[in-house]
């Protein structure tokens, strides 16, 4: 029996080996931009960077148009990690929706939970106990340090440096073990609850934290010396991927990528939430706007996070860590928006209630996605090797980009 295959079937393409690996899609261009991008001039070549590539931090695919070693143009192709998390959350009740958000930015899961929880709390109009607020901030800032430590390692790994990633993982592992003592999980914590957190501070967490805090500043500073004044590292990142203030604002960049251009915009100060108004910390900024500035800025942020943790431990009030909440929540119809400062920038949640026990609309605004769009401005004109350095300095997490 012979089966007729239509021309659009990908199996047709397998017949001619020359087209298997071609980055040009087999269909006619759908837009002007696509037609322009796939029209190759003399000496130009298309290369698929990803979806399986060691340094795209997940399954990002970038079609690079290169002329020799130089990147002429590029076209990011997203969606390889799309899991439909927003839609899944709309089919779960308010308590269940929180745990779907965990695997979005999987290296900073607590932030993923905090924004929806805050949005839901606005919908339900409940007061969160102050102790719960402090515990939230404490655990989030710990995770911010872990995330930035890992960023350092990733940046070095994409530049070919081998050791820093392992030192970064040591740092992260200690924090993650600590949080495992607090929440019961190492990566996808599912710790935040509407009206509080899932468990009070316990002895193991506190003893681990105290022991770690006594040497954290020293160890983090020691890890940073691996790269800070490394001649090769500085020469590769300084002046690379420079983005100016206006372009950064036009592209809606947030987080370290924006603050490295000199804009002191941090949700923790600009639109304070939780107990941040009571805490004392600075918003570090830099003016250069290059990869090196983005790297140094994160190191400064780690120091500020350590300060915040210290203050949280000092000011930690007594009391319950959970408000009295019904098992099934049916908020009045309405809408709520909550934004927080995640390690990568503004992480926000927008929720609409139609009066049932499930959110009618559940939308996540993810900083990785917004920051990633700047590669179109930053990368062209640079070399292939710099593409990795620029992308790594933006620190996108594909779980958050593709949702």
């Amino acid at each position, binding site marked *: 029996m012979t089966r007729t295959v239509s021309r659009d079937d990908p199996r047709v393409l397998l017949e001619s080996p020359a087209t298997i690996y071609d980055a040009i899609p087999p269909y006619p261009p759908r837009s002007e931009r696509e037609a322009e991008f796939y029209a190759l001039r003399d000496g130009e070549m298309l290369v698929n960077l990803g979806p399986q590539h060691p340094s795209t931090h997940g399954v990002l695919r970038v079609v690079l148009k290169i002329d020799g070693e130089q990147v002429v143009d590029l076209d990011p192709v997203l969606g390889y990690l799309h899991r439909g998390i927003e839609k899944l959350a709309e089919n779960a009740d308010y308590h269940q929706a929180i745990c779907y958000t965990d695997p979005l930015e999987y290296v900073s899961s607590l932030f993923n939970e905090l924004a929806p929880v805050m949005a839901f709390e606005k919908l339900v109009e409940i007061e969160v106990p102050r102790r719960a607020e402090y515990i939230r901030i404490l655990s989030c800032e710990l995770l911010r340090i872990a995330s930035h430590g890992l960023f350092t390692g990733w940046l070095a790994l994409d530049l*070919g440096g*081998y050791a820093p990633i392992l030192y970064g993982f040591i740092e992260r592992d200690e924090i993650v073990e600590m949080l495992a003592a607090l929440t019961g999980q190492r990566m996808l914590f599912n710790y935040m609850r509407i009206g509080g957190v899932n468990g009070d501070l316990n002895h193991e967490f506190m003893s681990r934290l105290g022991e770690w805090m006594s040497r954290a500043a020293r160890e983090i500073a020691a890890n940073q010396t691996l790269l800070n004044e490394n001649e090769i590292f500085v020469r590769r990142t300084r002046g690379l991927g420079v983005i100016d203030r206006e372009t950064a604002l036009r592209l809606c960049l947030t987080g370290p990528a924006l603050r490295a251009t000199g804009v002191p915009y941090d949700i923790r100060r600009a639109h304070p939430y939780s107990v941040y108004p009571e805490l004392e910390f600075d918003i570090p900024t830099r003016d250069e706007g290059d990869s090196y500035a983005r790297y140094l800025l994160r190191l400064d942020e780690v120091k500020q996070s350590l300060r915040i943790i210290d203050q949280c431990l000092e000011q930690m009030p007594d009391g319950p860590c959970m408000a009295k909440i019904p098992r099934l929540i049916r908020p009045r119809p309405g809408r709520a928006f909550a934004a927080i400062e995640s390690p990568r920038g503004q992480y926000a949640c927008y929720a609409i209630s139609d009066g049932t026990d499930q959110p009618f609309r559940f939308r996540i605004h993810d900083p990785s996605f917004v920051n990633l769009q700047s590669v179109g401005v930053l990368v062209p004109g640079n070399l292939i090797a710099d593409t990795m350095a620029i992308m790594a300095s933006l620190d996108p997490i594909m779980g958050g980009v593709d949702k």
Partner: protein
Amino acid sequence: MSVVARSWGHLTPAGKVVVPLLGIVLALGLVAFLGIVTGILPAIGDTVVLTGRRNVGIVRFLVAATAALLASVPIAFINIYLEMKLLAWIALRRGPNRVGPFGTLQSVAHGFKVLAKEDFTPTGADRAVFTIAPVVTFLSVVLAFMVVPFAPGIVGVDMNIAVLFFFAIGGLTVVGLLAGGWASFNKYSLLGGLRSAAQIISYEIPLTLSVVGVVMLAGTMSLHGIVEAQAGHFWNWFVFQQPLGFLVFFLAGTAEGNRTPFDLTEADSEIVAGFATEYSGMRYGFFYFAEYVNLFILSAVTAILFFGGWSAPVEIHQLAAWLGVAVPSFAIDPSQLGIGLLFLLALGPALGTVLCAIPVALLRTDWSLRRALAVGFVLFNVVAGGLVIAWAYLASEVVAGLFWFLGKTFFFVFVFVWMRATLPRVRIDQLMGFAWKWLLPASLFNIFATAAAIVLVNR
């Protein structure tokens, strides 16, 4: 047939090796017996010996090539193990610790792994070139390995133009890399191949020019001669007369051997292993082997050209003369010992074991006599081994030479691994700029300065 198959199935894995071997040995024995009886084998043997005598050069070359091929495998294994272990320690990990004592057989396991893997050729690849490319790379490295002298007399081929041969053959690796990158039908591989062509050819120039100073000082291109020119004390080593030459050679050698921070040809975070992207199985293994043998050769040649090769930092006889002590002569002629040799071999270990066990038994009274004897036996072996090695070091200049040569070489292997663990990778424009703007003028200046110094001193 089924009987044979069933018996074969009953055999243990060791039996499956031994039984065919036995068969082969029996068959060979039969052939040898018949050959000797009929007088064919002695005739063939005479012819072979005669031909060999008439062509000593060719025979020597064949033996040397075989020895270099065979030696390259354990050297690659040792280097791979060292790299894994050192990288792990620098990154605060444990490293390989499962296969063999301290994981020393891990690289052998890796070797078996690449042998057992599927040898995959991608669709659209140029099969012939794809197959031959790793062999070219490996063979050029092994050929360069042949001229490296380990100790006085321990060298594959003692050429009077060994330095020239080394650079000429060593530069051939790029042919294999470029061919492999081109034939893989992969854009990353193509980029890697072109990068290797640009990089290795650019760095070949300062690498070769940096050695000219050494050649001028030694007055010979033979690696043997260069080592002999540095004999005596460590201040005779050329690194003190050619510091700039050494720096240029070391940096250019790093780039030539594709080592971090100049490992752009196989940059895994940029072009996904470059020329090796599409390779798997033993073809990849050849690239892998070539890289690690090359690492050893680079370290060895650095040690030979600039650090005196096999010569000790201070000659032991010289040291003894300064201190006013006579080094005892350790020349033992076994034939003079007669029956004493037998006694030494038979009674020595027993006597030594008992002697070493006495203090152990006295110190640890809670141990049984047998346990004390066992510990005493181990102690005796350590002591006797140490004595034998010390005797060999003093009595044979080959052993002493090997000791210093391998020590220096593996020190440089360590430095290369250390650099890999510490440094990020440079960019392609920085790499080329470094070669043409810094290394090339520096090596030319070095030649000029050395020549001027030689003329001034000799005047």
